[in-house]
């Protein structure tokens, strides 16, 4: 068992045992407290440039299965856990966690006191970290010197449009680092999907004659993206029903003059109660966020706040007052996490359906 280290920006070093790839990597350290779905988490593109600490003490129990990837080429920078199990046995076609991480050049370290690490992150806030062979001064110098890219979306999103045909509503998905859960839910509702690159123009999108538009999840800060993206959103939101998720939600907010701030501690988990304001009901969902929409910045003549996180008070959902355009910060696709709010996809398809009926009936 090779000993390797997780070193942190604050100077601390955690020895542990290596699994997965033996690559040396640097990324933002984030703790995820979701109890199920390590496969979905690791393969989610939002973890581009990030090293994931699993607070759940043991992962890998069920291997990885072909039906549950959130992307084809995961881009996480590392996996830290107390214990991992290298199993590839179950009723589905599965490979083991170790093999998967090796395939995708993602290093892992186990035998780390992840609970202590979680406490540290909570106390000191977001931190850069590296996974290295030796925790010497050189490694720390490298860590401090590394500037993480702000071109994350361009690195993970599709460069070219591609279709995912079906016979239902025409949906254009703008890919900012799309997770497959979104496609899966659209596909369950028979949507005829075209995925377009993050920098697609409004003309290109509208030329596809969409019944609806989805702005996908993705990694990094929304401010890293050019103004042209916001302009695109502004132009399409009045033309077809729009559903924005995660990074898409943050961009939707920016396009409607709200502002976004970085959280002191990124929140990745499925334990915070989310309140839907209109019904006053509470539900739970996978949340993976480093940024949040500032509630004070919202122009209430333009947007409703539809959902808030009851623990940290962050805006979790918005809706345009004038158009059927809405957004959520969390992941209603439940990959991973509760499916409590998966009905938002039904809302989206029902809005599309209503529009078609209305347009057909209009006289």
């Amino acid at each position, binding site marked *: 068992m090779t000993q390797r280290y997780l070193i942190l920006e604050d100077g601390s070093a*955690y020895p542990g045992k290596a699994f997965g790839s033996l690559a040396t990597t640097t990324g933002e350290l984030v*703790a995820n*407290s*979701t*109890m*199920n*779905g390590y*496969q*979905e988490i690791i393969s989610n593109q939002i973890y581009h440039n990030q090293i994931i600490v699993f*607070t*759940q*003490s*043991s992962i890998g*129990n*069920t291997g990885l*299965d072909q*039906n*549950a990837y959130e992307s084809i080429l995961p881009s996480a920078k590392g996996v830290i856990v*107390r*214990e991992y*199990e290298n*199993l590839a*046995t*179950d*009723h*589905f076609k599965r490979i083991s966690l170790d093999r998967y991480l090796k395939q995708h050049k993602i290093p892992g370290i186990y*035998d780390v*006191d*992840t*609970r*202590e690490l*979680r*406490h540290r992150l*909570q106390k000191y806030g977001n931190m850069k970290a590296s996974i290295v062979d030796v925790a010497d001064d050189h490694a720390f110098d490298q860590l401090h010197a590394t500037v993480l890219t702000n071109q994350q979306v361009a690195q993970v999103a599709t460069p070219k449009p591609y279709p995912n045909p079906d016979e239902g509503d025409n949906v254009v998905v703008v890919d900012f680092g799309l997770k497959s859960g979104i496609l899966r839910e659209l596909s369950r509702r028979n949507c005829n999907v075209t995925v377009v690159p993050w920098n697609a123009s409004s003309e290109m999108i509208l030329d596809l004659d969409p019944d609806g538009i989805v702005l996908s999840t993705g990694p990094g800060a929304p401010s890293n993206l050019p103004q042209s993206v916001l302009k695109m959103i502004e132009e399409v939101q009045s033309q077809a029903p729009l559903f924005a998720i995660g990074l898409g939600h943050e961009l939707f907010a920016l396009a409607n003059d709200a502002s976004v701030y970085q959280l002191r501690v990124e929140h990745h*988990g*499925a*334990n*915070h*109660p989310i309140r839907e304001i209109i019904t*006053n*009901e*509470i*539900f*739970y969902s996978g949340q993976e966020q480093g940024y949040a929409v500032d509630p004070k910045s919202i122009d209430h003549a333009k947007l409703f706040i539809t959902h808030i996180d*009851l*623990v940290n008070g962050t805006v979790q959902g918005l809706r345009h007052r004038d158009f059927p355009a809405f957004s959520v910060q969390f992941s209603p696709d*439940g*990959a*991973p*996490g*509760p*499916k*409590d709010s998966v009905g938002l996809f039904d809302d989206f398809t029902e809005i599309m359906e209503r529009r078609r009926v209305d347009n057909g009936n209009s006289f």
Partner: protein
Amino acid sequence: MAIVFNKVLLLGGGPTSIGHENELDAAAFERLIALRKTGAQIIYVDDNPFSVTSEEIQPANVYVQQVNFKNVVNIIEKEQPDAIMATTGGLNAMQIAWQLSESGVLSANNVTLLGIKPADLRKVIDNQKLRDLLTEISEKVIASKIVADDSEAMDFVREVGFPVIVKPISASHDTSRFICNNTDELEDALDVSFKRTYIKRCSIEQSIVGYKEIEMVGVRDTNGNKMLITGLEDMDPIGIHSGDSIIFAPTQTLINEEYQALRTATFRIMDALNVTGTCHVQFAQSRTDSNYFVTKVSPFFTRNTLLAAKATGYPLTYVSSFLELGYTFTEIKLPTKYSKYLPFMEPTMDHVLVRIPLWPFRDINDVDQHLNTLMKSVGSTIGVGRTVEEAIIKSMHSSQFSPRDILPSVSKVDDDDVINQLIHPLASRILILMEALRRGFSIDELSELTRIDRFYFYKLNQLLRAQDYVINNPMSPHSVQVGHKYGFGDGMLAELWNVNISEITRMNRNTKQPVTYKEIEPSAGEFIEATNIFYSSYELENESQPFSGKTALVIGRGGNQLGPNSAADYYTTQILISLKKAGYKTIIMNTNPNAVSLTPQLSDKQYIEPIQLGNILNIINVDQPDVVFLPGNRHYLSKQLKQFTGLNMVVLPPDQKVAIYKEQEATAAVDLFIQDDEIIPVTTLSFFNHNNRMDLHHINDYQEPMSHWETDEQSLIKQAISSVDPTEWQGLVQVLFDQSGSEYTCTGIRPVRITETAFLTKTTGVNWINVLVRKYLGLLDMASLREQLRPAEHKRYSIMTAKFPFKELQSNRQEGTTKQEVGASLSFKNFE
């Protein structure tokens, strides 16, 4: 917003039995604390003499009566409560609630049933209605049909497919079930079954034997907000009762999609039943696809509801009490040690909990000992760790009880027997699984034979490898590290290497591998939640800090077994309460998930750790207690601990081995309390003997005071006092007598037994455990005790009747020994 209820009738769980231990009392106790915050007056009914709850309520509001329909009706009519809470009284109380509503008693007396509306309760109690409801909300239930001939049976099987289970209805023999995998087997089964049924009807149902058993515990408020406490996974497949299964929290072998489907189903069911409070739903999950069936819905507190709470550290009973009263999640205020978000933060775990059942076959061996659909276990132990192996080994260590710090093994069983026991498991289930691995059975083969997921065999195999490594590399720091990671305590390592534990402790110091304690709290480290519930692991950060001021460590009794154990838990609880009153910070160490003594409000700190030498020494090292309370049945442990000078140890409950018998027989007894050289009579007792068996092992039932007390008591007390020597006997002492004619002969002297101490506390008006604790702390106020105690002023007979689990175990026995008691009931009789 909640309606205010001024008077609430709380139904108790009754005497402990197979199926429920003290967990219902623990839940009722927490509930009591919650209800008090609302200012409600609480009326409690329970005849369990070992109930802690009934002691915490004003005697005038406690009805020591059997929890049955008739008694509850009388109480309702007399007390006129506004509401009734049945959810902590088990299925019995829920059935009474249903009867109360069906018979119109609730509406006639204007009583609100809390937790579930009567109309919805009916859907749970009536199996067919539940099936209809589940079908209506598109949740799958096992298909079943009553058939009158072969062709109807064939039609059914064509629809649902094999395997199926055939059972004769109103059978001449005891009901046997036939599992049929093909047409031939089905024909044979129908043939036999139709011959056995009196009414020419057989039931046939889809068989799900071998499916995974998954349990979900959810909570819901009056606004329809829902939260999942956690999922539990039974290691053993369907076919072995969940109560007899080894259980893991969180679930280990479900993928996200499967887990979320069961979560959603649980919520849908809670919505359909309008549950306000907790709901426990059991599922059978296919191993080959994502199919599942709902097998059981319990919108009330069950053993595993409370296990889910223990596993997560979520104050479930407390929160649920408010939910039942109509509060919403956001309206509930928790004690300040928790973060304010806690009531509505969905619990997330960063540890693993394993529960292993304990069976009574050592004490009752003439029954079918196979584990099947009939629950047979009487208790369980839990182990908590950061790794799955650590949790398994800790819980095994506590369940496979050995006085010494070792894991027992079944290496003497021959190969045929191993295979036989793999297919037809016995109480030694987990040891057999390990033994089979040790003998080279392949994991695939084992999984096929047992229908246990491969994952668990990988883990057990890992444990074996770790054990081998540790044994083969004695006294190496790396060996210690490996041992620690997989849950081998220092005491165990010492036994494996045959060295004194202090050598291991020294090694740990030198290699800087000290024990660390992690908190069990529901936010996985996101918030500071001072639950003060800890388990050990060997990592970086230690979260358990010693208290300032006087501290007492109380060692619990561990998993429940037959004999006086539920009384022992009551005893432990009273020790904690007494210590707290005496100004001590209290620390409890226990492994029984159903123990009242682990109720969060009863101590300042709780350790879920094996009750073994190494683990105890580690805790002593961290907490530096001023006094340690150790139960008297742990002779080896007590001997070991006594080696450590400077340890102020009190043995309570007392060690029964010090008893002196002239004859193992008695018909009456005098209980005395001895402080220094002062002897105070407490009361007299008559023992009931059955079939003229007067030997002590068969004396389970007794009354206080003795029969003919008016004439015989005074002289007997004198005789008793003259029989004991205060230099030999201290504390609560029982002098035994045998009567022939009007002559009483002293037959022995012993410490008052645990069950009787509980009995005396309930009947004499003096909390004897408190008295004993104060005695050993040197705080006893004799003057007030003398004042309090009026031994001759009897008002009525108090009667203790033992309960035996013979019926549940399908044993033909009628009478049992003291070692076979599972619980007891208390009743009163007026003098004639």
